[in-house]
């Protein structure tokens, strides 16, 4: 996903002279082409995320379209108040891009995990929360996010994730993409577990369960129409995300459910739980610990369907 980000932001900067890329001392070689083409529109802001976010606000207040880029937990929690006031209160067209969303940097430990970022960011007025499921969605979401009018959080994975979209989908911020129909269960996935969600549906289908998948790449604004359809047509809606149990997509869906009682489907939440993920090992291993693999998700869904 990060390579798709670099490629897309470079292409967008060719068309829009207002785009300025700010990096928190990361991803340097990745942006070599950008820096070569636009040396006055790339700034390494150092390991100083609060200032980087304020600089982005100042640039946006001067007519630019800045993008801040660093590791997800540092570009969100560390500078949360700058995001809240400098970006959201002013409602500025700034993209906050976090690389290594969820457990992408599992092996680096909980300092580098971001399983609370969706909850934090979606609580902010004016903020859009975008969690692409693969590299194709990264490019499409970024191209729309830089257009504003307000701020966006773009939650990236790492690199070499499986590409789910073999053809370019019609993607619109705030509209879920239906990837496969399902009558028994609809898996609503946000972010980098999308291949696991697709795998889970495949396993369930093999067992005679009609399992659908949608990529809910936009957690905020939430696609309420799609939620209404899914809860009305299926027996189960399973929300899957590499995020804690509090306040992520499943939290947003649960809030919607509280406002819209009496649905046909019940809600199943598949996430990283309420604890820090504390164990050496890669992202696959961390997903196994959290029950976020295709196999584990399929088992949980089958059990919930009874």
């Amino acid at each position, binding site marked *: 996903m990060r390579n798709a980000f670099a490629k897309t932001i470079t292409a967008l900067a060719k068309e829009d002279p207002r785009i*300025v890329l700010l990096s928190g001392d990361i991803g340097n070689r990745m942006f070599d082409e950008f820096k070569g083409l636009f040396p*006055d*529109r790339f*700034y390494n*802001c*150092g390991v*100083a995320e*609060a*200032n*980087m*976010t*304020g*600089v*982005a*606000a*100042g*640039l*946006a*207040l*001067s*007519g*630019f379209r*800045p993008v801040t880029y660093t590791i997800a937990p540092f570009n969100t929690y560390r500078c949360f*108040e*700058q995001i809240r*006031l*400098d970006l959201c*209160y*002013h409602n500025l067209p700034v993209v906050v891009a976090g690389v290594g969303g969820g457990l992408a940097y599992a092996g680096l430990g909980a300092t580098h995990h971001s399983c609370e970022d969706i909850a934090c960011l979606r609580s902010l007025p004016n903020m859009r929360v975008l969690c692409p499921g693969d590299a194709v969605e990264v490019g499409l979401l970024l191209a729309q996010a830089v257009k504003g009018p307000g701020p966006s959080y773009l939650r990236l994975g790492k690199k070499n994730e499986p590409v789910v979209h073999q053809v370019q989908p019609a993607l619109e911020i705030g509209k879920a993409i239906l990837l496969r129909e399902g009558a028994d269960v609809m898996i609503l996935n946000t972010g980098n577990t999308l291949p696991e969600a697709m795998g889970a549906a495949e396993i369930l289908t093999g067992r005679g369960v009609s399992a659908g998948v949608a990529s809910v790449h936009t957690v905020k604004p939430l696609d309420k129409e799609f939620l209404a359809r899914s809860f009305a047509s299926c027996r189960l809606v399973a929300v899957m995300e590499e995020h804690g149990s509090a306040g992520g997509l499943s939290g947003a869906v649960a809030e919607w459910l509280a406002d819209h009682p009496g649905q046909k489907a019940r809600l199943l939440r598949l996430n990283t739980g309420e604890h820090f993920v504390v164990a050496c090992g890669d992202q696959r291993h961390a997903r196994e610990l959290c029950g976020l693999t295709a196999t584990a998700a399929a088992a949980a869904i089958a059990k919930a369907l009874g």
Partner: protein
Amino acid sequence: MPATTDTVAAMRAAAKEIRKQAVMMSHRSRAAHLGSALSCADVLAAAYWGVLRVDPKNPADPDRDRFILSKGHAASALFATLALRGFFPVEALADYAKPGCHMEEHPTPHSAPGVEAATGSLGHGLPIGCGMALGARIAGRHTRVFVLMSDGEQNEGSVWEAAMFAGGQKLTNLCAVIDFNRWQATGRSCEVLALEPLADKWRAFGWSVVEVDGHDVAALAKAMNGLPDPSGKPLAIVAHTVKGKGVSFMEDDNNWHYRAPSDDDLARALAELEGA
């Protein structure tokens, strides 16, 4: 460029009016932070009557100079300044901090024309100012950016992140003014944290530093008009001030960080300011 006699007179008159308005605003709305507003009235007067290239009739002119009141709690002084400078009618100040009024006790761009940034949480103005100064450089504009901070605000880490950024990027169109009145909310600013040597700190972060009497409008304007500094560095002005300046019974009394004047206080304060 030395300020003309007329300019100095105008700056002095403006400072006096800003102070009178701030006292009345605090009295009317029972709003806090009057001492902080009085402390920086001369900086605002020098900036808006002797330094800034701004057009109240065209507040969004992309080439304008920018002034950010990073010590947003002195909002009353900023609103008074903008009104007196012609950005909006002075009569509108009567509604300051009243229910439904957009002029809240901390300023935002939706408060009134001329407010460049939402402030009130300390440590936000300088990073935003850095972005504006950088943006002007990228766009090839001659915009100068001024950020007024409090001395208590120097506690915030983001100030020093921005100081390093501006020093590193050599933002010669950026000026930080520190209202060094030696008080913060609950104590002496040099005792709460290790603030001194303040000027040396800014020098160490790659800035050119000037120290001035923060109530001498001519000296303030001269220092601010020193931008761009010939050294090729951003410019920090340490303005030595007195909190509550201009009203004898408020001067250097930190109770006026939160207290609002009574009817009696108001009459005495206005009489003193008028007679000054």
